[in-house]
């Protein structure tokens, strides 16, 4: 009667999901941050995002050709890598540097491990770390947002010792300033209060996608509602960051800024919602996610408060990525009905 009956394992139906739909969801979640980047940094934002996405995609394609593997750009995961890398770069970074970062991110961070699903480290953070170490000056050259200064003049982390609060916005990124304040015993308090609104809307110096807290919260909420990410990692990152920051603030409120300020400035939210939640490099179990998130948030705050860098997100994510397999082994799930006897 039928010539073409197919057989396979049950179940015979599946939810209309694919890796591509998951990745498109993440891109949708990143859209508000991209729009905010475009608003504050104008054309530069789009140039960098396009450069990173194209360079990442080409790198993956070349790797596939060299390794004689099937075409894999269709899952859009490389687009997500490119966007996250671009959003974590300084606005005035030359395009060639961004391209180098993308090539390293995809070729070494992802394809060298065997492609999607096999990489230990978050590819975008691998690329960013490579750039931060190789091109230190370029990676710490910040720009005044176009909404404050249409010329988007450069700001230098060195020239910070100013007393007028209104000039801060054109002089340093919030975290760089608070770092300098710690070094030079300046009052962190005044600055933080004056700048808090700027960090919420995004009208401050910083990486492309990290400045606007509102856009990141919108995007993160979208991912949470769509259940593309679970709340465990963002919650763990943010709670542990607040706790660590609060300890610092409680110890010495004149040197360390308020905990809330640490949440809204730097890459904390971008990390909590989009970088630390990268499923490939985060633990599988809920307990593991809590440990991972607490590690990311805690390490970030340690670097910010005590370390030499003003920002610690990329190092803390990479460090926790490295221990993810161990966390997974530590946090094995026990069957709902208990461990079997014997």
């Amino acid at each position, binding site marked *: 009667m039928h010539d073409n009956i197919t057989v396979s394992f*049950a*179940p015979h*139906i599946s939810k209309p999901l694919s890796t591509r739909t998951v990745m498109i969801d993440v891109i949708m979640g990143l859209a508000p941050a991209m729009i905010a980047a475009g608003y504050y940094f104008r054309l530069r934002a789009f140039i960098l995002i396009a450069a990173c996405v194209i360079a990442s995609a080409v790198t993956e394609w070349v790797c596939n050709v060299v390794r004689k593997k099937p075409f894999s750009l269709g899952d859009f995961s490389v687009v997500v890598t490119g966007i996250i890398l671009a959003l974590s770069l300084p606005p005035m970074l030359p395009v060639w540097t961004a391209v180098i970062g993308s090539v390293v991110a995809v070729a070494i961070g992802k394809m060298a491990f065997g492609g999607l699903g096999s990489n230990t480290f978050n590819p975008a953070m691998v690329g960013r770390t490579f750039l931060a170490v190789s091109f230190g000056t370029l990676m710490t050259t910040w720009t005044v947002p176009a909404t404050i200064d249409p010329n988007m003049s450069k700001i230098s982390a060195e020239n910070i010792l100013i007393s007028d609060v209104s000039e801060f916005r054109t002089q340093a990124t919030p975290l760089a300033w608070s770092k300098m304040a710690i070094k030079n015993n300046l009052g962190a308090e005044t600055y933080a209060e004056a700048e808090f609104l700027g960090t919420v809307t995004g009208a401050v110096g910083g990486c492309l996608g990290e400045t606007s807290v509102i856009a990141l919260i919108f995007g993160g909420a979208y991912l949470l509602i769509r259940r593309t990410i679970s709340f465990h990692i963002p919650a763990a990152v943010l709670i542990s960051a607040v706790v660590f920051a609060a300890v610092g603030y409680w110890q010495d409120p004149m040197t360390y800024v308020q905990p809330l300020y640490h949440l809204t400035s730097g890459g904390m939210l971008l990390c909590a919602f989009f970088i630390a939640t990268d499923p490939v490099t985060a633990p*599988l179990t809920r307990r593991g996610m809590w440990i991972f998130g607490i590690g990311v948030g805690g390490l970030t705050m340690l670097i910010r408060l005590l370390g030499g860098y003003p920002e610690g997100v990329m190092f803390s994510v990479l460090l926790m990525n490295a221990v993810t397999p161990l966390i997974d082994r530590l946090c094995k*799930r026990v*069957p709902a009905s208990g461990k*079997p006897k014997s």
Partner: protein
Amino acid sequence: MVTEVQGNLSFRGGVHPPEKKELACDCAIEPGPAVKQVAVMLSQHIGAPCRAIVEKGADVEAGQKVGDSDAFVSAPVHSPFAGKVKEIGLCSHAVLGRSPAVVIEARAETPPVQPLWEPDADFDESKWSPEAICQAIRDAGIVGMGGAGFPTRVKIEPNRQMPKETLIINGCECEPYITCDYRMMLERANQIIAGVKLVKRASGCSRAFFAIEDNKPAAIEAISAALGDNELIKVAVVKTKYPQGGERQLINAVLKKHVPTGGIPPMIGVLVVNVATAAAIADAVVSGRALTHRAVTVSGEAVARPGNYYVAIGTSVGDLLEFCGVMKTQMPRIVMGGPMMGLAIADMDTPITKVSGAITVLTNKQIGKAKSAGRQTACIRCGRCLEVCPENLNPTKIAHAVKGNLLDLAQSYYLSACIECGCCSYVCPANIEITGYIKTGKIFVARQNKRMPQ
């Protein structure tokens, strides 16, 4: 009147596949095809296979025993109609591959019997002793008709080591498409209740819950009406969720108890019986009829006349589908059972057994592009399979351990605790056959432990 019901009894995990019950839920149970020939499988249950007790060429009567076994865990098989034994040979079986069967040719055009059975108003289960009930169940060859096929007599017989106190009647029918249990509950509520009372008496259970999913308000109403003011049997409305009808999940939802991993429900004093089994028990004990027919749902988008049919056990899938009219579609998949746990069959001569509650015919559209092409991509560790696993396992780790031939690792992730419900494969965005890998792993482990031939 349809009442709004909301069940909050549930378990952790599970999925909500499209129910698709509307295709067949309004079709009353009708007589199935009047077939000329049936193949009665000798192994339709868990336990020792039967041995044929009729010779080739022998005449058999309707309901005559054609296969039996001396083993305790076994159930005899019977001829559904009067006819002649054509041969005793091998037949396709969805699980066992080729398995022996008694092929019986009908003597005349025998219309399938449709016993409309109503217990008397003064039905009193205490007329039968527990031993008599157990014996009648064994003689009628009744096995768990929900899918597992465990001999019912073995299950309900009182056991001193594991006294049973709670009986749960499984009327969940959580698989998409299937509606035969639903129709049974609507049309034969009294028969089912009579069966429940008999099981309760035979097993010594002191209380009983009739579990029905909240997407079947009509069935809840029918059963509640049939129960009247019975104090000892209560309707438990459970949430509509797959795999709510799984024994372990159902016990968890209704009683908030866990059956130990690797254990069986009697260990915690629970007995679960499917509604179709309960109806068959009433039939067997009161009227002495053997289990030779069962309600089967034939459904799916590719079926011209989907519905619920009262089919002679042994009827081939091909005959049944021809009777219901299958539209010729490209590459359909014929599934014995529902789409979540059912087994895809390749041979249209595969006979219906006591445990086949449904035949689902799926088209490529339902199966989905990626699945029908068998396209699997890399695991992105999204954790969806962990979220939905009703047994709280780590499906992706088990599947990848089996894929890498690391059986020890797979077992350390509790491979054997998997109930093979298929939720993980259902939600996997990478379309990995997680359940398939786990099933394969279980077979490898069984072979390693020499519990299964190579």
